């Protein structure tokens, strides 16, 4: 087991009273005040996450686009410079190696942002499958600090301190600009279901940027501005976003997960997993990933069975408390033929609790 790593801004977060937990090989801030308060701050105002544990791979070379189209399920032929796209990276059997975002920085330069828990595996996978392509891959995971500013007030919060007009930056687009005299990438992306920005900052200059952001937050008198991984999970689950190892994994393919829109079977190239995913689509998945809410505050946790009468028809993949709905919510994998059953339930500590399927965003369901 390799040694647990500290993010570059550890001291900054300690000063903001972060509580740290080990996650995917990193000591990460999990909460500052309260998971629920931080969650609500992001839904109603704006919050800052340090997600520097995420992996960054830089891809360059004349055949970068052809390589991405072979490596990944989404279509990158028409991805413009300044735009980014979400995709799956699949095994030949259609199961998921990781989900990621590809940013086109220049004609022949791409940044690929991957999950921390998969970063080493992903890089090895990319290198292994790059044979025969004129490309170069560099693991720059330690070179970048990634700060996410999320919430409906993100733009009005950041605009006065950014040397660009952020209102002109569209969703899934990025641009290089200055903040606190540091050049960094502003990307209009996030993992909360709210508007927001992700800032890719060269690690050695990140403290200056973080300090400028902290000063702005103080001037604005923002409460619960600093947000940890705890509310990152409850926010993404309310939004209905997948987390690797839960809704997608090496045993759950993207079609089953309801992420078929990221699999472009019609694109003009072969890609890893194509024939397997075509088969899964043609035969229709035997199970489906769906989001639910419970008629109760008891949380059904990963692995809990879902029942229809005396039949076990599925299993919980993620479960948490929704601070917005004030009830338990989650995701589950369920036998496709049973999704229309009239009543389903989980059984927690001897109590049967009714379950309702909801279309994400879960927190906006009636």
């Amino acid at each position: 087991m390799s040694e647990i790593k500290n993010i570059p801004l550890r001291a900054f977060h300690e000063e903001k009273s972060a509580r740290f937990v080990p996650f995917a090989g990193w000591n990460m801030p999990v909460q500052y005040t309260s998971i629920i308060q931080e969650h609500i701050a992001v839904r109603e105002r704006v919050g800052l996450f340090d997600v520097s544990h995420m992996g960054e791979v830089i891809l360059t070379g004349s055949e970068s686009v052809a390589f991405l189209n072979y490596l990944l399920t989404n279509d990158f032929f028409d991805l413009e410079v300044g735009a980014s796209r979400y995709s799956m990276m699949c095994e030949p059997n259609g199961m998921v190696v990781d989900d990621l975002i590809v940013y086109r920085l220049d004609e022949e330069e791409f940044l690929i942002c991957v999950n921390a828990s998969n970063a080493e595996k992903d890089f090895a996978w990319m290198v292994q499958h790059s044979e025969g392509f004129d490309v170069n891959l560099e693991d720059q995971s330690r070179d970048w600090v990634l700060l996410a500013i999320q919430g409906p007030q993100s733009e009005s919060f950041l605009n006065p301190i950014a040397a660009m007009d952020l209102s002109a930056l569209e969703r899934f687009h990025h641009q290089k600009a200055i903040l606190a005299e540091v050049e960094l990438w502003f990307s209009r992306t996030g993992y909360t279901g709210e508007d927001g920005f992700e800032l890719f900052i060269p690690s050695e200059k990140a403290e200056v940027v973080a300090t400028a952001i902290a000063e702005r937050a103080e001037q604005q008198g923002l409460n619960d501005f600093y947000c940890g991984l705890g509310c990152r999970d409850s926010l993404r689950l309310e939004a209905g976003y997948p987390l690797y190892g839960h809704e997608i994994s090496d045993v759950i393919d993207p079609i089953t997960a309801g992420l078929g829109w990221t699999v472009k079977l019609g694109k003009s190239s072969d890609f890893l997993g194509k024939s397997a995913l075509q088969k899964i689509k043609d035969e229709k998945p035997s199970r489906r990933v769906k989001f639910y809410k419970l008629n109760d505050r008891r949380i059904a946790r990963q692995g809990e069975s879902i029942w229809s009468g005396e039949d076990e028809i599925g299993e919980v993949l993620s479960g948490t408390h929704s601070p917005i709905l004030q009830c338990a919510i989650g995701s589950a994998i369920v036998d496709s033929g049973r999704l229309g059953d009239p009543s389903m339930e989980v059984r927690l500590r001897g109590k049967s609790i009714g379950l309702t399927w909801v279309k994400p965003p879960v927190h906006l369901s009636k």
Partner: protein
Amino acid sequence: MSTIRDDLKYTQDHEWISAEGNIGKIGVSDFAQESLGDVTFVELPEVGASFAKGDAFGVVESVKAASDLYLPVSGTVVEVNEALEDTPELINSSPYDDGWIVKIELEEPSQVDELLSPTAYKGLI
């Protein structure tokens, strides 16, 4: 720093009890609520239920996990804090006052004396 109230007795499982006559009021310590994080649900026992010392009498659930509550002494539940059904976060905001969990009729009031003093509990956390 967690607050430890001087007028209470404690257990190794981070419950507290205050006894008046043969009635004991029970909750969880400030240290416990800090460790749990935001409490989202409290499963309360039925009034009239009897438990032996050390029995699990309820569950306190947070975003992170569900944890059993253990009765510090033997007794019968005479009252539960119904406010926790809709506002379980009282355990976070007021663990020693508004966030109390149950009141019990003590079977053996002397059992209270055997529990941890505030000083002994402080040494434990």
